[in-house]
């Protein structure tokens, strides 16, 4: 894999059925867009059923990154993959709401463990539905 030293890349880790993305840097807009397509590519490649995006170290989410995250969730959802945003800081949440970005329809979790449980639950519910319909 070619590594461009000038481009910070955010690593995407696959564990079981899930992808884990931990955003550790203050992203500029291009990097945010790049991350979005990177995750979608990875979903297609691995057939992951869920994505956990950890933003616990992000000190700021502005409207651009906010819309990138919620857009990401809708796009993944069309690809039949659930996205959970994990670990948002209280100050970030308050600011986002005041900004007018309430991110309806985006699943959130306090920590990775809760996020993982949410994905498991969703996956199992879907399994059960498939069985019932057969």
């Amino acid at each position, binding site marked *: 894999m070619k590594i461009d030293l000038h481009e910070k890349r955010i690593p995407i880790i696959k564990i079981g059925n899930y992808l884990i993305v931990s955003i550790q840097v203050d992203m500029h807009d291009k990097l945010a867009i790049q991350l979005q397509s990177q995750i979608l590519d990875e979903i297609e490649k691995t057939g992951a059923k869920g994505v956990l995006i950890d933003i616990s170290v992000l000190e700021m989410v502005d409207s651009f990154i906010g819309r990138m995250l919620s857009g990401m969730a809708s796009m993944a959802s069309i690809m039949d993959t659930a996205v*959970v945003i994990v*670990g948002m*800081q*209280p100050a970030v*949440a*308050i600011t986002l709401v005041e900004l007018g970005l*309430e991110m309806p329809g985006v699943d959130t979790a306090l920590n990775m463990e*809760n996020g993982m449980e949410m994905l498991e639950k969703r996956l*199992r519910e879907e399994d059960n539905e498939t*069985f019932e319909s057969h």
Partner: protein
Amino acid sequence: MSEKHNITNIKKRIDRIEDILAAVAAGDLDARINSETEDDLSGIEAAIDLLIDDLTDELKQREKMQKEVEDKLSKIQEQQKTIVQQQEDLLELSSPVSKVWDNVLILPVIGTLDSQRTQIMMENLLEKIVETGCTISILDITGVPTVDTQVANHLLKTVTSARLLGAECIISGISPAIAQTIVHLGIDLSSIKTKATLQDAMIFAMRQNKRTDDIKLQSLYINPNEKEE
């Protein structure tokens, strides 16, 4: 006594009166003429002394009053400082967030809510949610007499922010008066889970807890694929 001597004497006395008056004007309130001779002029001198006496009394009284007022003022300022301090303390104290059960936080709110207090409350609650990892919190407003648009919006903001963190926030104890105000103000609280009493909210929270526990157990012991067979 010669006429001339008399006139110089009188002139001296008038000079003295002038000097004394000048001294009083300059602030020396102890200056008096204290004439020892008795004649037509001494009446005037005595009268002037009396006037100075009166003036002195008046001035002393005024000074005393001024000092009293100043004392009172500084006392009031002191008290005001204490009040502000206590208000700040109260703000901190008035939003005690406590964990009452596995996964459940309660924030009982008592007294009038203003914008500043609601703001501090919201920050406290959200911090506590992250700190404890509790996914359900109950905001009990039984002790709140009224809410206005701003406060209702802050409550709404708290619930929405909590959701962004990944936690659910229930508001309990909405009195008929508050329900009426909220609807009259046209505030939409339909996106919020509200419960009539703290007890109802607790029951709801426990059920929610039990559901997650059940799911956890299920995922540990039962594989859905085997269940069908």
